[in-house]
């Protein structure tokens, strides 16, 4: 019994150690559901957002999850929207998913829109 127990502990230590290193290498910000922000969010690499925001978001990759709500300006290279947006979107690559609801202005280089999304917006294409 004692031998078996010690070997199990070793495995646990190894896995947690590796996980910490991975977390440090990715500059990822997660803003979970039910978080409310009034203001601006700026990040370098990746923002994963599921809360409520009134203000601006700026990052190279932005992922707005299905329960998110943003009122304001969203600027990024790659933006994926599953939630609700009321405002301006500036993106190089914009992916609008089926659960998205968008109102406002969209400026983009490349866009794809999934079936089911509700969009009431002015689109401005630039190459």
């Amino acid at each position, binding site marked *: 019994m004692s031998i078996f127990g010690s070997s199990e502990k070793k495995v646990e230590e190894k896995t947690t150690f590796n996980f910490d290193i991975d977390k440090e290498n990715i500059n990822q910000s997660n803003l979970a559901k039910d978080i409310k922000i009034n203001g601006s969010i700026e990040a370098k690499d990746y923002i994963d957002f599921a809360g409520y925001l*009134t203000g601006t978001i700026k990052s190279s990759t932005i992922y707005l999850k299905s329960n998110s709500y943003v009122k304001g300006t969203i600027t990024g290279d790659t933006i994926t929207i599953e939630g609700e947006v009321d405002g301006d979107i500036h993106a190089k690559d914009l992916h*609008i998913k089926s659960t998205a*609801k968008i109102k406002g202005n969209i400026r983009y280089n490349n*866009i794809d*829109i999934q*079936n089911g*999304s509700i969009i*009431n917006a002015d*689109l401005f*294409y630039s190459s």
Partner: protein
Amino acid sequence: MQIKHIFISSLYKASMSTEEHKSIDQDEGSVNEYSDNDSKTVNVGAGVRIEGRIDGAEVSDISGTLSGTINSSNINLNSSGIFNGDMSGSDITISGNVEGDINSDQYLIVNQSANIKGTIEYSSLQVSYGAKIQGTIRHRGSVHSYSTNLDPIEKEDKTENDLNDQKEDV
């Protein structure tokens, strides 16, 4: 006589009635795949230019240039197709150039090669990566669905205020 079926391609360059069309089918049956007289089909071949109004068509397949108004339940604008004007239908697929208004009852599919300038009104929209759209997009009947979902932050603030008011009252 009512024209039910218009078939226009670079070979024929004309619109014709069903009877005239029939005779051509017999001669060159292999050329025309829209041989069913009851199918209200419009086919504008590549290189053909049409100006005017198309109404009551069921299937419209456009590879040429069409300027004017088209009302057809099924519209397919191919990658070589150019359309200027107002387009309305149920199922619309766009792969070519559009300058004007698109009005879709059901499914609007915008393919990669599409280039649209104008106003789009849709019920269900699918856009492939690479398509160029410049103009306004409106979802049909979304006035109601939007008002129910207005600004969750303000909504919740209001309810909190209401609760506070109630407390003060007590």
